[in-house]
């Protein structure tokens, strides 16, 4: 069983489109995150949720809207995609000692 699973793994889309990435964890953790990893492999935190509530919003454009329907799920919706949004997006969950990452979703905006 995959602990943190993200879908889709790959996403290729045109500028201006809207897309979503889903994330689910079966570890029973209260805290989940979205990180963005750019082409230089720099991993930057975007959002953090604790038990469905937003606790960290790291000055991400309003076009990015996370949603947590329950503590096991944290989805990321992106409106009006731009070229600069191309990156690998990682979901993670945490027991506050360690982060467990999904395999990543590679988004390419053309």
């Amino acid at each position, binding site marked *: 069983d995959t602990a943190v699973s993200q879908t889709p793994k790959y996403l290729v889309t045109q500028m201006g489109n809207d897309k979503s990435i889903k994330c689910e964890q079966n570890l029973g953790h209260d805290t989940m995150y979205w990180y963005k990893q750019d082409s230089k492999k720099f991993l*930057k935190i975007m959002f953090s949720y604790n038990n469905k509530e937003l606790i960290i919003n790291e000055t991400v454009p309003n076009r990015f809207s996370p949603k947590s329907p329950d503590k096991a799920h944290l989805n990321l919706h992106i409106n009006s995609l731009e070229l600069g949004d191309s990156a690998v997006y990682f979901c*993670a969950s945490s027991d506050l000692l360690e982060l467990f990452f999904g395999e990543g979703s590679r988004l390419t905006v053309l």
Partner: protein
Amino acid sequence: TQLLEQSPQFLSIQEGENLTVYCNSSSVFSSLQWYRQEPGEGPVLLVTVVTGGEVKKLKRLTFQFGDARKDSSLHITAAQPGDTGLYLCAGFEYNTDKLIFGTGTRLQVFP
């Protein structure tokens, strides 16, 4: 947000060599972690260091947390091709408990 700089950024070595990766910041962290990331996968935790000056060993890997809790190092003895990957340090900010990642070190070990 605090910044963690890693050096070197890239490292290519032969199997059997030793290496050290550094992680530096001007800020103090409550604890620091090291992760390894392989292509197509998410980072995986290697170790957490909490106390200033702490040294932890994981087989051929030795991790040290600086006395002032602003820096850390990872030393690998007799590197093997299986050590190839992206090594990321990450520190927990004191006030926010945000985990901030370093700039990364890409290690390639050739047989």
